[in-house]
C-alpha cells in the first residue's frame, strides 16, 4: 500500500517538476533599485529577447509564482514586503537576485537605509551580476537556474528545500 502511494507520489513529483521547468512563472519585485535592472527585466520579456519562448511568464501574484526575480539593495521599508512576498510564495520557490546592488548593495553599499543585498534578507538561488546585467545575462541566469532543476540533473522536492535557511531568522532579529 505504502509502496503504491510512493510510486504515485513520485510520478506526481516528476510531473510537477517537468511542468515547472518547462514553464516557470516569475514574479518581479523591486526592493529599492534604481530602475535600471527593472527595465532590463522588462526588456527581456519584449520581442527582441522574448523570455516567453522559454515558457517563462511574468506573474502578478506571489501565490502563483515559482521564481522571484528581485532587484535592488533592499531598503528598510521594502524589507518587510520582500519577506512577506517570499513567504506568500509556495514551495518550492526560487529567488534570483538581479544586478550588482541586489548582490551586495553595489553603489549603495553602506547607505543608511539599505540592507546591502537580497541575501541578507531571504535565501537566494541564483545571482546575476551587472549594473544592470544585459538582457542576455538575465536570460542566461534564468536558463542556468532551470537547467539545475531539470530532472536530468536532480529533482528538487520539498524535502530538499527544507534544509535551506529559512527566513524566520531574518524576521526575528
Amino acid at each position, binding site marked *: 500500500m505504502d509502496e503504491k502511494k510512493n510510486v504515485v507520489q513520485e510520478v506526481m513529483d516528476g510531473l510537477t517538476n517537468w511542468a515547472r521547468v518547462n514553464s516557470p512563472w516569475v*514574479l*518581479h*519585485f*523591486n*526592493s*529599492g*533599485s*534604481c*530602475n*535600471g*535592472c*527593472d*527595465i*532590463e*527585466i*522588462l*526588456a527581456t520579456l*519584449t*520581442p*527582441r529577447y522574448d523570455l516567453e519562448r522559454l515558457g517563462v511568464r*511574468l506573474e*502578478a501574484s*506571489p501565490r502563483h509564482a515559482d521564481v522571484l526575480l528581485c532587484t*535592488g*539593495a533592499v*531598503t528598510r*521599508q*521594502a524589507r518587510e*514586503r520582500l519577506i512577506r*512576498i517570499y513567504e506568500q510564495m509556495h514551495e518550492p520557490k526560487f529567488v534570483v537576485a538581479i544586478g550588482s*546592488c541586489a548582490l551586495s548593495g*553595489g*553603489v*549603495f553599499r*553602506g*547607505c*543608511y*537605509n*539599505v540592507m546591502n543585498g537580497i541575501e541578507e534578507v531571504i535565501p537566494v538561488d541564483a545571482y546575476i551580476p551587472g*549594473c*544592470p546585467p*544585459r538582457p542576455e545575462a538575465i536570460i542566461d541566469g534564468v536558463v542556468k537556474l532551470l537547467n539545475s532543476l531539470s530532472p536530468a540533473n536532480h529533482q528538487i522536492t520539498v524535502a530538499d528545500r527544507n534544509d535551506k535557511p529559512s527566513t524566520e531568522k531574518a524576521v526575528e532579529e
Partner: protein
Amino acid sequence: MPDTAASKRFTVPIGPQHPALKEPGHFEFTVDGEIVTNAYVRLGYAHRGIEKAAESRNWVQNLYLLERVCGICSHIHGFAYSLAVERLANIEAPPRAQAIRVIVAELERIHSHLLWMGVSAHEAGFDTLFMYSWRDRETIMDVLEGLTGNRVNYSANVLGGVKFDVTPTQADIIRKGLTFLEERTKHYLDVIMHDTMFLQRTRGIGVMTRSQAEVMGALGPTARASNVQRDLRVEAPYAAYKDFPVQMVLDTRGDLEARFEVRINELFESYRLINQILDNLPEGELNVRVPRRIPAGEMIVRLEAPRGEVFYFIKSNGTDKLERLKVRTPTICNMTSVVRLSVGHQLADVPMILAGIDPCFSCNDRTVQIRQADGGAQPNGLSSLMSWEELRQYAIRKYEAR
C-alpha cells in the same frame, strides 16, 4: 449584505508590489462603487539615502553614484551634477562635449518616451503597442550601447566633459536609427490619434486644466499637455541648447490623449535636434581638467529631464568631498496631480492616470527632516523636529516678514 453606505464604500490598496507598476509605491483608493472618492499615496520604498551617501564619497565617485538615482534618466543626473561641479570650479566643458552631452540627453529622452508609451499602453490593455514600442526602443538602446558601451547607466559624463567622441561612422548609425524610428513614430501617432478603442481610454480622462497644473506644480510633458509653458530647454537653455534651440510642444486639452500627443511630438523634436547637432558638431577637445578640490560655494542647476525639471543643489566646502547635496526630481511634483485627478474617475482609469505622468519612484523617494532653530534643545543634542503645521506657520511668518 446590508445596503449601507459603509458596505458600498471600500478601500482598495495597491502596491507596493503589483503588476501594473514595476516600482514600489503604495496607493490606497477609497471607492464608492466604481468611482474613486479618495486617494492616498505612500512613497519611500525606494529611499536609499543617496544624498547622505554622496557626502562620504569624493567628487568623481559621486558622478557614478548619482547616475544611479534613476536608471531611466541616468544621464540627466550625471549631466546636472557635472554641470554644477564645473560651474563651482569656474570652468566650462568644451563645446564639442556640450553638444555630445545634449545628444545623449536627447537619445535618453527618446528611449524614455518610447518606454513610457509602451508601459502606459500596457496599462490600457493595449499590449500590442507595448510590444511594438519596446521592440523599436531597442534601436535606441543599440545606438546608446554603441556610443557609450552600456545600455543603461551609460556614464557619458566625466567632470569637465564627456568620455567618448561621436565619430562620423557612429553619427551615420545614429542617423539611420533615427530615420527608422521617425517612420515608426509617425505610425504610433496615427494609432494614438485614431484608434477608437485607445481613444476611449484616453480622451477626456484625467483632465487637468492649466490653472490646476500651475497650482499643483506639474512639470514636464504633464504640464505642457495642459498648456503650461514650462520647458527649461527653451526657458533657460543650457549647454548646447543655446546654439541649437528646441521648439516647445504644447497642447491645450490637458487629458491623457494630450499627454500622449505631447510626448510623441517631442520625439519628433528630439529626432530633428539630434540630426541638427550631428550635422553641426563643433570641433575641439572632449574634456578639460577639473581640480581634485572644488572651491567652496553653492550652486543650483536645473535641467529638463524626460519627465520634467531636475533640480540639483550642491554645496562645497573646498575639500575633495561635497558638503551637501539636494536633488529634486519631477515625479514628486507630478504625484499630487495623480492623487487629485483620480478622484471622480473609475478605478480602472487610475492606472492610466498614474502612468500618464510617467512616474519614476526610484528618484522621488527621499526624506526631509526639518529641525527647529532651537539649537539642540533635545537631550540627544539635536534640535527638535518640526511638525507639518509648525513648518506651515513658519513659512507664513517668514513670507509675511519679507
